[in-house]
């Protein structure tokens, strides 16, 4: 499969497919360290390409690549939140992965015209601590979190720092409307919320019992569940978004052929099956089963979340959110 792609990409086809690349690839990634350690050696063994990872948060790797523009040092973005990635389209080169036909077309929308390729997807969810909140009491909707009884008991990552947290804000505005009524719901939730600096702190804080409930994304929450933490996960009945994490080819990459091989491999069935099985990641492919214990997507009420709309309104929404924080804190 991979061999075909390489031959297709290089019409001369005179070189042996396995050696028609630059021999190394530099991958900027926000994937968990454990995933990086698992996938790296598999790719090297399969292709003979030496892979170097630069690991940091989504915001940091994008900032790094922005600063390096003009003389890019990285070749590939791997497993970054797709929304911020799509917002940095000027850093990216369009590419279509070998298995493109297997990727669910729903997730290709708003991906900077094919510059970003969906990797895995993760619905926005509510988590609650089962020791502090009974299953019956648990908030079933976003709207329920606006109830004053949750005052100082719920956790939310700062929308001006965390990409996933901004997605939640834009999701709330999709559900309740970008109008006075919608912003009132946001304000009421923020009145109850403790603002944390990073998205990973929300499920962790809820699992540890620091907060009763929190607004976060599915795979971080499910990792707590898989680890045995007393955490319940709710897919809000008033509807949620299911944004993808994405991969992309960096414009001006020094190892473009190896980079494309990596991009193909990252969304191959082999890798996606492993990510679902061992790392609780829901694939964007149509032929990979959800991880064990995950609700099938068709049972989750999804809203028509428009990534381009969310990206375009980023500055305005964040400013409004900050105004709310100044008002209520």
């Amino acid at each position, binding site marked *: 499969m991979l061999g075909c792609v390489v031959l297709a990409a290089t019409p001369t086809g005179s070189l042996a497919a396995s050696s028609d690349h630059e021999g190394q690839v530099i991958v900027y990634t926000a994937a968990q360290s454990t995933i990086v*350690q698992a996938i790296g050696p598999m790719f090297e063994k399969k292709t003979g390409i030496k892979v170097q990872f*630069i690991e940091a948060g989504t915001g940091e790797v994008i900032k790094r690549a922005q600063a*390096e523009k003009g*003389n890019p*040092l990285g070749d590939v973005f791997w497993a970054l939140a797709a929304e911020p990635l799509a917002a940095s389209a000027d850093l990216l080169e369009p590419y279509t992965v070998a298995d493109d036909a297997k990727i669910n077309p729903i997730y290709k929308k708003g991906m900077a015209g094919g510059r970003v390729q969906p990797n895995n997807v993760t619905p926005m969810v509510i988590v609650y601590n089962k020791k502090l909140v009974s299953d019956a009491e648990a908030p079933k909707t976003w709207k329920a979190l606006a109830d004053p009884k949750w005052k100082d008991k719920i956790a939310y990552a700062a929308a001006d720092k965390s990409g996933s947290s901004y997605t939640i804000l834009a999701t709330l505005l999709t559900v309740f409307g970008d109008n006075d009524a919608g912003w009132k719901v946001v304000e009421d939730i923020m009145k109850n919320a403790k*603002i944390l600096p990073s998205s990973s702190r929300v499920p962790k804080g809820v699992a540890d019992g620091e907060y009763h409930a929190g607004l976060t994304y599915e795979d971080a929450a499910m990792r707590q569940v898989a680890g045995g933490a007393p955490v319940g996960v709710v897919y809000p009945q008033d509807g949620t978004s299911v944004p993808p994490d994405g991969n992309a080819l960096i414009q001006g990459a020094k190892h473009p052929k190896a980079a494309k091989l990596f991009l193909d491999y990252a969304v191959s069935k082999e890798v996606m099956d492993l990510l679902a099985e061992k790392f609780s990641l829901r694939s964007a492919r149509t032929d990979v089963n959800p991880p064990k214990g995950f609700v099938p997507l068709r049972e989750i009420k999804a809203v028509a979340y428009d990534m381009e709309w969310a990206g375009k309104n980023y500055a305005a929404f964040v400013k409004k959110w900050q105004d709310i*924080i100044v008002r209520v804190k």
Partner: protein
Amino acid sequence: MRNRGDVWTGVSGVAFALLLFLLIIPLGRLLWASLLDDAGAFTLKHYRDFLAYPYYSRTIGHSFLVSGLVTLCALVVAVPLAFLIARMDIPGKPILKSLAILPLVSPPFIGAYSWILLFGRAGYVTTLLQKGGIIIPTVYGMHGIVLALTLNLYPFVLLMVAGALQALDQSLEEAAQGLGSSPWRVFWTLTVPVTMPSILGGAMLVFLTAFAEFGAPMIIGEGYQVLPTIVYSLFVNEMGSNPALASTGAALLVLCTTAILLVQYWAVGRKRYAMTQLRPIPPVRPQPLLRGLLTSYAYLVVGLALVPALVVAVTSFFESRGPVLYPNFSLGNYQEVLFNVPRAIANSFALSTASTLLDVILGTLVAYLVVRRRSAVTAAMDSCVMIPYAIPGTVIGVAYIVAFNKPPVVLTGTFLILILAYFVRRLPYSVRSGSAILHQIDPSVEEASISLGVSPLKSFAKVTARLMLPGIVSGGILTWVQTITEISATVFLYFGAWSTITVVIYRQVSSSNFGSAAAASTILLVAVFIPVLCVNWLLGERAVTAV
């Protein structure tokens, strides 16, 4: 005399060239952006925006409040402790001195979690006390930041004040007492004023470090924002940053820091004491009861500050299932990090040692110029050196990529850029501790050496540098431990095989693998502690914390 001027003019020329190339040009370009509008014309609009918007402007007040309180608390805790360590004969001193530095080694983004683990809403101590009917306030918010930072930063004051006390000559106090002064009078009229430059120097380091710190406020602030956390989020925003406003915030940090430094100049500049240390004062052995009390105080303070490190060490032996920790003994976390830790530790040691050596050499020379060749030029140099102190490492990291990723000078992708960034970022430590100790040394000894025909540089090396040695070495140790725990610039500049131990820890924390992060942190703590302990042991009583 003419010759002496020439040599030092040359030295200051070289120092200025280095600062220009490594500091002023890369950072100046970045800060300049705060004064330009979209079309590239001069404007103060971004400053008006920043100051007019409460979400941003209120963080300036928060920063001053937090840093002021932290400095006050650190002085209250550390000055008595410095007297104890320098003057009293209490048991286990080498270990105590070494343990006292340890809080500086604890990487802030994991150390601060320990306070949540103990004093959070569901913390061990909080719940334990609740069972006994005692409700304590949680660690979150401003007072938690002050607690964490005080215990994290008090070693700065301790190191510098203990160093100054050690450099006091015995004959001075003897003379004062011989002239009929009571011990208290000697203390207040001699010891306190003479150590004041070091007390202020230490206070300054604490204030400035607290002012630039964003780890602890982020972790336990729970929405209580300070200037550096705002600059960080403006700068490294996942959804596209706001470069102009971020530069404005960074420039405000620099402005505040410069203002604080000017106040310090004014305070120290007016009062200076010079002395020549020939006979160090031997430690006093107090009466048993007093000795017991003082010893308990010293160990209590040092012990409390070690709580985060201890919690991290204990946690590292817990069993991990994904992100969840269970209190069963396990070595699993260590197995998890075994693959990349040895190489990462070796990298961290090599990079920080190289940059520390550079810092010590240039820092000592700059300190000498600033103190002994006071002029507008050297004062400007002193302020420049302090700029990296005020700026978050993130900003320095990005500024370095922008400056050194294009010809004529391409350093990105090499280990050299890390060494240079560390060098610039930690230079203030060497300069500050060097100048603090220089204020105590009488220039006449060096002048005598020169008048006896020894060349100025040689006189400096043989006489002044030697007398400065306690300050130089304690500054060097500070620089080294602070460099080896650097993360915010590293994360932008590391490349390929040059990943450091802090990158490993940081990634494990971001992946919610707290067990593995704790294991890697514990390895770092031990790896740093052993050399510090060895230095203190080797130098024995001459060592004041470090040397």
